[in-house]
Every structure is written in C-alpha cells, then in structure tokens.
C-alpha cells in the first residue's frame, strides 16, 4: 500500500450526523469514544466539520428536511469518502419507515458503502462497520 493509502486507513476522521433517529444509535456512537471502547487508538476522531471528515457516520432515517441537509453535507466532504449507515433506521427506515415525512433509508439520498444493522447498534458492531469502510477507503484511488 502506498503511504497515502496507508495513512487513509490509519487516520479516519468521522463526521457523525443524526438524521432523525431516536438518538439510541447516537449514544452508542459516542460510547465508542469513551475509554472502554476507545476508537481514538485507531486514529478515529469525531470532527464536527464535513470539510475535515473522511467517513460519514449517519444514524436515523431520512426525512424531507434532513434530505436537503444530508445532501449539502455530503457535497462538502472532500473525496475520498465513505458513508457508513448505523442502525436499521438508516438502512431501511426502521421502525419509522411508514411515517408521513420519512423518505426511507439513507441510500435514498446519498450512496452508502457500509450498513451496520442493529437497534440500537452495539459499539463493537460500529467499530466493525467502520473498519470495513476503511478497507473500502484503502482501495479507492
């Protein structure tokens, strides 16, 4: 692997965005940052800023309002980027999929690379999903 590709795997910066989730998955994402799971040892840092991020960690189903926001944020993230969808809500709409303002899963709006199922997702599964996304990131140009 080239130096830059190795660095991409070793230094994934995360943008965590909550569409309209119940916050259960968000709490689990934040739990990953705590000393018990400590994702920072993999170089993962939660950046609040799309322009600094490589991985978009998205929770919750997409509704009409957040579709616009999600598209805006996705465009602000520079390439190469991967999208990780956390929770069943992000994959298919989950328990909310029949609501009047819910459009469905995240892949209705932006292309998704990794789906992490669960409701709410366990931190180990989130880390597993991000690592899978990193492998995809490493193979990008």
């Amino acid at each position, binding site marked *: 692997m080239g130096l830059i590709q190795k660095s991409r795997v070793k230094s994934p910066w995360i943008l965590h965005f909550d569409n309209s989730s119940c916050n259960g998955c968000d709490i689990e994402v934040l739990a990953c940052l705590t000393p018990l799971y400590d994702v920072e040892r993999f170089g993962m840092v939660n950046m609040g800023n799309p322009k600094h991020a490589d991985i978009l960690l998205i929770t919750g189903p997409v509704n009409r309002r957040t579709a616009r926001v999600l598209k805006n944020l996705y465009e*602000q993230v520079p390439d190469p980027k991967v999208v990780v969808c956390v929770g069943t809500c992000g994959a298919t709409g989950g328990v909310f999929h029949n609501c009047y303002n819910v459009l469905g899963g995240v892949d209705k709006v932006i292309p998704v690379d990794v789906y992490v199922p669960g409701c709410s997702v366990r931190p180990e599964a989130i880390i597993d999903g991000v690592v899978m996304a990193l492998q995809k990131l490493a193979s990008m140009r």
Partner: protein
Amino acid sequence: MADSMMAIAILLPVVAGFLILAVRNYFARGAVVILTALILIANSIYFTLKGPFTYTPGGFNWGLLITILDYGILIFYLYIGISLRNWLVLIFALTQIIPLAYFEFVMKAHIEVTPAFVIDNLSIVMTLVISIIGSLICIYAIRYMYDHEHHLHLEKSKQSRFLFWLVLFLGAMNGLVFANNLVWLYFFWEVTTLCCYQLISHDRTELAIKNAARALWMNATGGTAFILAIIYLYATQGGANALSMQTIIGGGLQGTLVLLPVALMCYTGCTKAAQMPFQSWLLGAMVAPTPVSALLHSSTMVKAGVYLVVRLAPAFAGTYLSIAIAMVGAFTFFGTSALAISQTTGKRVLAYSTIANLGLIIACAGINTPLSIAAAIMLIIFHAISKGLLFLCAGTIEHQIWSREIEDMEGLAVKAPLTTLITAVGILSMFLPPFGMLLGKWIALEAAYIVPLAAVFFVLASTLTIVFWTKWLGRLLQVLPKLGWPIERLSPSYAVPLWTLLIGIFVIGIGIGPIYQNFLLAATNNVISGNQIISLGLNNLVLTTPSFLQREILGVFPVWPLYLILIVALLLPFLMIGLKPTELRPVYMCGEQAGGGAPDTDEWFAEADTVTKCQLGGYYYQNIFGEKRVCPWANAIAILLLVIMIGGVIVL
C-alpha cells in the same frame, strides 16, 4: 537660485491657489493643480540635490506683511467666534491677539532675525513629504470633489474654493518647515490652522462648522502658548536673536527657566498633532471630504506638530522635560490605539491610528537618542505615505459604496477587488514586518528602554494596533464562495495617487538602508549627532549602542530577506494557485443552506423553514474600548501628564 526655489516652495502655491479660484472650468482647473504639483515635486527634488543652506528674503518688508496678515487672521477668528457665538474660539483668539499686540506695540519688539529661513536636512525631508505626498493628494482631490458634489447634487460648485485652500496650505507648510524666525513660524502655523478651519467646514453643514470651530479653538490654545513663549524669550533673553530656532536648539539660551518656552512650544506641537486630551478635534475633522483628512489630518499638517517637537529635541535633551514629553507621546499612543478598536467608521479608525503614531513619534523625540530620533524621522516618512494611502483608499471606497461605515465595506473584495487590494496592502503596511512602519516601531522599541514606562506603553499599544487593523481587513475580505470577480475601473485622478503611494511604500521600504545612510542620517544629525544604524550587506540594518569605543549590536533587521519572505508567503500563492469552479464548495452552515446547492449563497433555512440571510458583524467591544468608557480616565491622565510637563519645568 535660492530666491526662485524659496519663491516656488512658498509663494507658487499661493499664486496657483488664486489662479484656481479664477478658473471655472473643471479640466483647466485640474490642469493648474497638476502643473503646480509637478513644479512643487521637481522643486523639492532640487532642494534635495542642492543640500542645506540658509536664506533671508530681501527687497521687500516681508516682516511687515507677515505682521499685517497675522492680525488679519486673528481678527477673522474673532469674527468667527462672534458670528458662531462660540465663546471658546473668541476667548482663544483674544488670548492670541492681545499678547501679540502687546508684543508689537508695548514691547516695541524688533523682529529681524537672520537668517529668516534655515533649510537643513530635516527641513528637506519634510518638504519632500509635503511636496510629493501633498501634491498627489491634491491631484486626487480634483476628481474626488467633482464626484462629491455630484453625489450631493450641489447647484453651485465650490470645488475652486476647496482646491484653493488645499493648494495654499502646501505653501504654508513649506514655509513652516523652513522658518527659523519664530514669529514667521508662528505666522505659517496660523495659516495652516486657518486652512484647517476652512477645509473642515467646507460642506457648510452644522456638524462641519461645529467641528471646524472645535479644531480652531484647540489649535488656538497652541497658538497662545506659542505667542507666550515668544514674549517670554524676547523679554528674558534680551532681544530678537533669541527668536531664532537655531539659537534655541543650539543651546544659546541662558538663565533660569529656559525650558519654559521650549515646553510651551512643545505644547503647541501637541495640540497641532491632536495628542490626548485634544484628540477630539481630529476626530471631528473626519466629517470633511477625504482629501482634507488625507492631507491635513494624516500626512502633513499634523506632521507640523511632531516636526516642531522633533526640531526642539536638542533644546530639551537630557532634561526632565524630555522624559515628560516621552510619557505624553507614549500614553497617547496607548490610549488612542485602545479607542480605535471600538470605532465603526473607517475614517475614525484611521484618525485614531494617526494620533497614535504621532504619539509614537513624539515619544521618540522625548527619548532623545540618535536611534530614537532616526526612528522618529523614518516614522514621519513612512506614516505619511501609508496613512495618506489609506485615507485615499477610504475616500475611493466611500465613492464606490457611498458609505464610510466598516460594516458596509463587508465583502468589498468582490465589489471592488482592485481597491481592496490596495487597501489591504496599505493596512498590512501599517503594522507588519517588513514594512517601514514596523521598522520604525521596531527601532523605537529597541531604543525605548531608556524611558522604560514608555517602552511598556509601546508594547501595549503595539498589541492593540494589531487588533483593530486585522479586524478591519477581515471585514473587507469576507466574501462568499464565488469565482471571477470583475476588476473595477478607477479614474486616473484616483488611480495615479493610489498606485504611486503604493509603489512608494515598497520602493522606500526596500531601499531604506541606502536612503538612511545617504540622506536620513544627515537629518538625524541636525537634531542629535551620532549614528546608531549601520547598513550592511543585503540592506541589513544593524542597530548599535552609541559608544564610540565598543560598538555592541542591539538588533538586526534584514530588510531584503524579509521582503523576499513576504513575496514567497503571500504574493506567490496569490499568483500561482488557481481554483476551478468544480472545486468550489459552500461554507459550513450545518447543512441548512438555501439556494439549491449553489455555493455562493448566504441564505439559510431558519425556524419554520423561512429563508434568512446570514448576517455577520464585526466586533467593536464598545463596553471596553468605547469612547464613553475610555475617554474619561484617559483624558484625565493625559491632562495630568501635560500639567506635569509644563508645571514641572517651572517647579523643578
């Protein structure tokens, strides 16, 4: 030869002024101004080439003419005081005219002083500044006043009257810096005050007349002090030979309390330079059209005040008065820098910054070592160029957006990229290395430890200047993501002075080593002998201690390497890095931007999905640095310092 040079320097502007009054056509008037400007510039260069000399005009009773004109001006002030019912103007006109009459008729003073004019290197430096920068500003004023009157929809044009006073002023300034006879110096001083009054009140609005009257009475207190100093000198030193500036600075005064007239004249300089607590007249003068602010209130007239203090420096060297003057200047530098942070109008920021830098120059004169005097002279030159440029930029911006407020200048880089570029370079040249203003401030800081409290004030004021300049520049540069800003067209009357001054900043800054060695050193030695700046190698300025036996190096300023670093840091990226349209992204507004994905939108969806414009404002910290908070205690301390300055001379 000397006759014609002096006549051109002092009398040509008067003649040209009357010619301008007579000419009504815009282009002919402009041609007269440009021709006068070119002749004055050539004349000043001729002064430089000729070198120092002395001169006494013959063939006409000039002294009588000056006396008559003196009374004329003072009677005019009385008239203004009465017609405006302004008691302060009236009182301070009386306090000048009564002692003057006493001096003339009761003391039967004989005021023949030879030589009447002494043109030494310091005067030549001043006349270069006046002639070159002053002429450029007069050229700028041609088009500026035309646009100004157009915007105000005036029926009757007053441009001739404006240009008359502007050009006449140049002659008065030249006379001021050459004069050796104190009474003649007083006359030229009063003419500059008169021009100041006429030009500030030019628009004839209530505010303009009120502020012009304030400028008048504050400067009149200085004039009073000057007259009292003249009378004291004549009475105690026994005769007219004491009324020669060369005698005073050459140590030719005897007796007790010789410092009192010197202190009074320094007070006069402080009022002209709008030091605290007199800063309000300069701030009020900002209502005038921009060429007035550029010429009188930054480059030239206020420089007459500091010129007087620097000229008198040998007279108070090594005395208590020197330290007192250094404290007055240093405290003004600090106080007005603090006040500048809270100002929302561009010209008021420039005004406070001007007063601050004048305070720095006066403090350098007070510190009174070869190093600090060299710093003072360098600061006079660099400040005149940079601040003149900034005022002209402020005027150009005003005529593009028709506002003087900094908040209205937000995003000017898109509307007027060329003006913004010139203004940005002007602002950076005021406080950053390697430009000349910072060089002067660096030398001043390296020289300042002799009066350590002044050094502390320099440090605090330096910090505050960074804040307000960066804030303003930031507002100018704040743009939306957009490519391809069209470059605006500037009229030649605006463009020529702006570009000349901008190039001047770089030329004089880069060449400061040879310029100092061959020219400014001689001017410094007119005030204090000794040289502490050596220029080595690639224009490296090395500051040394003044001892002859063992020169120790105080500090080093490598001029050319620093300009090279500046080019690599800012100019190369500016020219070489491009941005493609596909690479443009919107700013981060939490994803809530409206505009359907276009990057150059500043509207966003607020509550209930209403589309709102994003509004950003500058920070002015009015509750900390505002005039209401700072002025009471700062003015009190400044008054105390002035009282200590003059009173201490009497007591100690």
